[in-house]
Structure formats: C-alpha cells, structure tokens
C-alpha cells in the first residue's frame, strides 16, 4: 500500500501547526498516563472511586452469561465421564470407602479438639461470612490474574477481605465498587498467602506463579519439606486470611522449587464466600509501651 498522502501537510502553515499540536498532545498524554501509573504504584487505592464505578457498570454484562460458559466448560467433562464410567466407578467406590474412614477419624479429632480447647479456654473468633456472591469474570487476556465478584460495598465487602469457594481459598478483594469487586486470585504473582503444611505444620508462603500454579516458599533454609500430594491451608499469620482454609495441593516438589495447584478452581466455582478480615488490628502499629492496649486475642 502506498504511503498515505493525508499526513503530508504541504505548505500550509496552519495544517503543519495542527499536526505538530497533535503530536504534542499525544506525548503529553503519554507522560500523563505514566504519571497516573506511578501514582497507582505508590498508592494502589488512589483511583478506587473511578475504578469501582467502572466495575459496577461493567459487571452486569458479565454476570448474564456465566451459566452459558459453565455449560460449555462442562461438555468436555461430561463426554470424558461417559467413556471412563467403568474405571471411574471403581475409583469412586474405593474413594468412598477411604473417605468414610477419614470422616470417622476427623470426627474423633474434632471431638478431641473441642475438649482440648475447652480445657485451654480458647475460643475461636466468630467467623460469619460477609456475603455470598458469584465469580463472573476474570482478566483472561492480561498477565494479571484477577476475578470479578458480584458483591460490593452495599453488601459490606471491604478491600482486603478473603474470598473462598466451597473447596478452598480463591483470593482477596483488591478493589470494590457498590455492587461488584475485583479479586486478586491466589495464582496472581502479586498474591502472597501465609500457609502451613497440614501434615506437620511447616509454615510457608504461597506465591502465585502467574500461569495457574502456585510457588511454595519455605521460611527456613534446608531440605524441601514438601512432598507430592501435600495439602496446604492458610495459617492465619498476618491477620488477613482466616486460618484453616485449604489453599494449594503440591504437584511437584523439586530441590529448589515446589509447584502447587490451587485447590479451588475459580473457573469452575459459581459461588464464592467473602470472609471478614481475620484480625483487623494485626497490621496496625504496636501501642506505646506505657499504655498496654488490649489487642484482639
């Protein structure tokens, strides 16, 4: 294609100045946008009103079609199930038997736990969920892993609250509008969740890897304590996430790196629960030494 002639302004001074002004505007616009980015990096909640309003406006569009997508995602599974029915049946029977044994063990443990807690006079903070909502979309074409939730400040959602599905932790709220909020999924690289190993309580940090997996970083140097099939739950450290929510399942444990997958797949979850911040005062500065302050537990 020949070069467009409209860019050549000829000898008209006015047209030349007009074009030049356009470029000045464009460059100024870029600088302004970079300034906005720097502000957003320094103060992530800077444009929360604007972004919240945009979320509110756009979320109804997304929530309309969620069931349709669920239907299409399910087709592949259904066909697979049909062909694998025989072996799946045997597997499921074995699993049911196994689960029954585990259930009895768990009941016994719960009873013992209750008795010991009564002995120690420890009471768990009452954890009622803030609200229940649906995950209706995600930033599927960007590098970040963010989800959209159909609940906002009108239902009591606050920035920082944890979001969990029936299986496990999904992420935490980072932006909220009146009727919708944005969730930082546990697989995003900016997400850091303090976890512990269910098997022996080893503390670790679950950091998203950006491709649907989670990296597990131990806090101590030494031999990799994780094995394939290990389950990690939130530890409650830091006061943001309530303890005991399943987060990740280890799929590969190497010498340097441990790869886990999230237990809750936000692509398959319809409903998610927003939980209150576990210990709201935990990230506040300590009280002055002179005046002891009664912190939450």
């Amino acid at each position, binding site marked *: 294609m020949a*070069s467009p002639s409209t860019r050549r302004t000829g000898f008209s001074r006015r047209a030349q100045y007009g074009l030049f002004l356009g470029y000045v505007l464009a460059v100024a616009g870029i600088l302004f946008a970079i300034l906005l980015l720097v502000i957003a990096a320094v103060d992530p909640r800077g444009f929360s009103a604007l*972004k919240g309003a945009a979320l509110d406006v756009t979320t109804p569009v997304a929530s309309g079609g969620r069931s349709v997508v669920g239907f299409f995602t399910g087709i592949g599974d259904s066909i697979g199930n049909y062909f694998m029915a025989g072996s799946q049946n045997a597997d499921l029977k074995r699993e049911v038997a196994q689960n029954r044994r585990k259930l009895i063990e768990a009941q016994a443990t719960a009873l013992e736990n209750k008795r010991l807690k009564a002995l120690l006079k420890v009471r768990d903070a009452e954890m009622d969920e803030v609200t229940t909502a649906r995950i209706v979309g995600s930033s599927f074409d960007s590098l970040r892993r963010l989800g959209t939730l159909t609940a906002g400040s009108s239902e009591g959602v606050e920035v920082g609250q944890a979001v969990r599905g029936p299986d496990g932790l999904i992420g935490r709220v980072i932006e909220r509008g009146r009727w919708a909020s944005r969730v930082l999924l546990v697989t995003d690289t900016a997400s850091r969740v303090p976890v512990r190993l269910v098997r022996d309580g080893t503390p670790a940090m679950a950091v998203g*890897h950006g491709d649907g997996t989670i990296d597990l970083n131990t806090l101590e140097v030494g031999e990799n304590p994780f094995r394939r099939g290990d389950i990690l739950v939130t530890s409650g450290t830091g006061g943001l996430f309530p303890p005991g929510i399943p987060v990740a399942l280890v799929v590969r444990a190497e010498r340097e790196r441990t790869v886990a997958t999230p237990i809750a797949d936000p692509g398959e979850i319809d409903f998610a629960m927003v939980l209150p911040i576990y210990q709201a005062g935990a990230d506040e500065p300590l009280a002055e030494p002179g005046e002891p302050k009664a912190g939450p537990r």
Partner: protein
Amino acid sequence: MSRIASADEYGYRIAKRQVVPVVTTILACTTDLLPIVMEQPLIPDFAFLVLVAWRLLRPEIWSAQMALPLGLFNDLVSGHPIGQSMALWTACFLAFDLIDSRVGWRDYWLDWLFASLAIVFYAFGSWYVAHMMGARIEMAIMVPQILLSLLAYPFVARLILALDRWRLSR
C-alpha cells in the same frame, strides 16, 4: 430508490464512516467482560489487535492522540492500572506515524511485521506495568500469549478489512 442520496441517507453514511472504527474498538475492549475465567494468560488482547489493524489499514482516520481516550476506556473496562493502555497505545500510534513517514510503502507482510513489533512492545509494556504494581511475572509465561496474538493478527486484520468495506459501502 433514486440514485441521489437524500440528506438523511448522506448523514447516515458520514456517521457510519466515522463511528464504525471507534465502535468496533470499544466492542473489542468489552470482550474483557465475557464470563471467562482463565488461570493462564493465553487469549490475545483483542482490543489492541483491532486498534492496530484499524491504524495500519486506515492511517488517516485517527491521529495519535485518539489512542488516549480509547486506552482510558480499555483500562477502566478490563481492570488494568489506569494509564497502562493509555501510554502504550499512544506510544504505538506515535511509532506508527514515524514508520509511515519513513517507510514509503507497506504491504501485507510488512503490516504483519509492524503489528508483531507492536504486539511484542505491548506485551513487554504490560509486563513492566505489572512489575511496577508488584507482580513479578516470569517472561516465559508470556510467550504463548504473544505467539497466539501474532497468529491472531491476520484474522483480525481480515475482519477489520471486511468491516472497512462495509463502512465505506454506499
């Protein structure tokens, strides 16, 4: 039907010519609202592909600063930090203006080459913005999405070409 357009028809045609590129770009931005939840960055950013396809096909319809409002809209809809698409898209438009003033002609393959450069620039720009916001992403994770974007560009360009013919049809 007479061969001479009435005033209404004429106005409609003018509006169609001016509005179709902007509306298609805005529609491409709103693909982010589709209820898809993906755990891996794979799907190309169609808003950017459509924008680049329009810009390369019809350099005269938009001046460089037009990318600012479109980018702002994309940032708001898709939840990027405000300013990401504004800065990257406008920078791309300026680069395209520079290319147009230096390179005498373009054909299909050169268009694809310039679009590919823009896609790679956009991907690394987004990576840097994510880095600024505290998300440390490995470069390798971006590769499949970039490749898919490069392969998707000719299809998007075809679509835009068809739309352009409809836009200019009488």
